[in-house]
């Protein structure tokens, strides 16, 4: 009888951490041929327009960055939380909390000097996301409520809070749609490059990569957060206040997701609408995993995702393959990455008996 047994393997060298995500992406692109062919698309043409649509022209390239910025922020948010084993599945709700706070502030801050409006809006969005993430962190540390469940469910709570406000106090006077009034001009993100939508939020997201990398690598807090993630009991034994570490990690994580919401509102929509996020918070989970929870990895995986999303529109127009293919490819990328990650830690041994 042949049996398969899964055994733990020796830790892989450091270069594997770079090679594996790349291998996962290549495998994903190869396997994407199956759904493309099933959808009746011409293979090479589809791939060509997928990449041309995302990278082929100046405008498309900059659009890819526009799309990447919320993904990068939610990806960082999830990666930062996961590193401390705070399983934040709630970036979507935290993003909405950020957008909501930015709306309230952005509509009403006409009275203060213009230069101060945007910083206040951003800070408000960051805090709103952070506080929304702090709730499950407190539930986890004080009452041992499972964080996967609580962060996930709080997403729906936030969606409904937003809905209630958009049909209520925040609804634009005179409108019958669930949408808010427009934010004032001083609360809008400046556009940095002409003839594009390349806005301040993209720089903020890139800056966040550096900041998170610095926190992880260089600071006492980053060390503690990692220690808590690796072995919370040993961290506690070593005198680390694990409750505080989890709480602060959750706040920073939620804050980053909140900033993603601020960006969507202040750079693209200028008013709050129900579908301000097409699930960026959930994509953030995939992006964080694909990026191996490393800030630079998250940068590249968010770019990969936005290439697929932006390119799929062109591909669809030119070849008739539906844009939903982008979501299929994203899902495949996650599955393949998870399988690859599994094999970095375990291997299959065939036992003959």
């Amino acid at each position: 009888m042949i049996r398969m047994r899964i055994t733990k393997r020796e830790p892989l060298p450091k270069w594997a951490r770079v090679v594996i995500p790349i291998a996962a992406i290549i495998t994903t692109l190869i396997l994407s041929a199956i759904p493309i062919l099933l959808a009746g698309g011409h293979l090479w043409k589809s791939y060509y327009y997928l990449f041309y649509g995302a990278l082929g022209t100046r405008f498309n390239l900059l659009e890819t960055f526009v799309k990447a910025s919320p993904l990068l922020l939610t990806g960082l948010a999830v990666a930062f939380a996961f590193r401390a084993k705070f399983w934040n599945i709630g970036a979507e709700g935290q993003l909405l909390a950020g957008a909501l706070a930015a709306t309230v502030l952005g509509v009403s801050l006409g009275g203060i000097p213009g230069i101060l409006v945007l910083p206040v809006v951003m800070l408000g969005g960051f805090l709103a996301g952070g506080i929304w993430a702090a709730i499950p962190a407190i539930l986890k540390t004080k009452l041992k409520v499972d964080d996967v469940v609580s962060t996930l469910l709080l997403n729906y709570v936030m969606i409904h809070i937003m809905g209630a406000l958009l049909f209520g106090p925040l609804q634009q006077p005179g409108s019958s749609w669930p949408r808010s009034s427009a934010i004032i001009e001083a609360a809008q993100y400046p556009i940095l490059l002409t003839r594009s939508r390349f806005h301040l939020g993209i720089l903020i997201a890139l800056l966040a990569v550096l900041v998170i990398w610095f926190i992880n690598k260089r600071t006492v807090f980053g060390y503690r957060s990692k220690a808590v993630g690796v072995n919370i009991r040993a961290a506690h034994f070593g005198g680390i206040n694990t409750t505080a570490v989890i709480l602060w990690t959750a706040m920073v994580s939620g804050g980053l997701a909140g900033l993603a919401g601020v960006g969507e509102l202040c750079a693209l929509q200028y008013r709050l609408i129900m579908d301000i996020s097409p699930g960026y918070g959930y994509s953030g989970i995939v992006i964080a995993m694909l990026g191996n929870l490393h800030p630079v990895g998250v940068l590249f995986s968010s770019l990969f995702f936005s290439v697929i999303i932006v390119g799929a529109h062109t591909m669809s127009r030119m070849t008739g393959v539906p844009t939903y293919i982008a979501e299929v490819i994203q899902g495949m990328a996650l599955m393949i990455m998870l399988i690859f990650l599994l094999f970095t830690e375990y291997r299959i041994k065939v036992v003959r008996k």
Partner: protein
Amino acid sequence: MSSITKRFLDVTANSDIDFNLYPGEICALLGENGAGKTTLMNILFGYYTCDEGEIFIKGEKAELSAPRDAISRGVGMVRQHFALVPSQTVLENIIIGTDSGKGLFLDLKSAQTKLLRLQKKFGLQVDPDARVWTLSVGEQQKVEILKALYRDVDILIMDEPTAVLAPAETVELFNTLKSMVKEGRSVVFISHKLNEVMEIADRVVVLRGGRVVAGRKTSETSIKELANLMVGRDLLERLEKKKVRPGKPVLEIENLSALNDKKLLTLKGLNLVVRKNEILGMAGISGNGQKELSEALFGMRDTIGGAIKINGEALRSGSPASAIESKMGRIPEDRIDTGLMMDLSVEENLILENHATPEFQRFGMMNFKKIHQFSEDLIGAYSIMTSGRDAVTSSLSGGNLQKVMLARELAGRPTVVVASQPTRGLDVGAMEYIHQRILQEKERGAGVLLISEDLDEIFALSDRITVLYEGVIMGDVPVAEASREQIGLWMSGVTK
């Protein structure tokens, strides 16, 4: 069972063991922790397969590759950790895995009749419809026994059954066991408690270091003899103990009480003093409160009464930070779960307790230059065998893991060192190194509390010896006046 040998990696848990069990007897399997008792019985129960040797049940050679093979031959086992489904009823738990259905449906009625008959016969009163999670530990044990009886076992293995029972429940259990053997069934009773063994067993087999050292009828032996057999007399390496005069008390434990994980009172008003330049060895069989005591000292467990003082200053209950501030060097018994972060680097483990000191950080930013210097110094000073400070800790051997642990905990020149089972699972070389380090700490001026199950280690290192039994101190004697016999009796709860 004949010539049973079982190895785990490089540890031989059972070595060439012959063991016979006769119908209608209670046979005790006696030995210290790690003597191989449970391993041997796990082999009989089909949970492990032996590397060498043969098993005959009722005269027939038995190939046991899974517990179900053993059960079908009439062997049942009640383990220390019960295998019950908490959310199901007693009856449902008992019929799990048995063929008790009519077609697609369960035949609960006839199962219940059979169960009630068994309960009456053996005096095992539990409500069949109660959900298991509502039952006390003693009642859950009854369910486990009923589970075995329901499957008509003739051989019942009980692994330290009294460890979880209150005294009255123990009496009940013993009555049940006695009524079982009257019917011609047999019981294997695994224990390290001498009193109980003498009370319940007809025969005793003593294991030590994976070998059978003796077999006795209880009517022809004494507690004293069994204690000697169990503990053994093989001596450890000779250590050079310098004469240092003990100084003032540095660690004082006053009337300390604490609960265990099951919320039972485990430390019952414990008092002891460790002085400067002194090693106090605490012997005792594990499960008597050692884990709870060391955790209370480390700040890993809340205390419910009493005080722990270092240099006269009381520690905050349940605060590891408080123990660190008071300069306690802490060597936990489970270095992998509690002491070390196996997925981080050696350096990251070495700086765990002082990474936030002004020396190593400023404004929340780590000073890696000094940290690297610190960790490289320690790796050198403790000759930790590793590819470097960045090596992942899980790549180190057991002895080197313990060196990392020691290096971190002793780097701050602690006032008090509490070491719990510091050499468990280590090879002789590493063991010697750890012993020398502990002696050096004492000579430097620390007061050391050494909690160990290894009597040889206790005798080799200690200046004074004390014994922990059921959460209280049994006695306290200078090593020069201590006899193994006396300590062995204390360990079994016998006072003279």
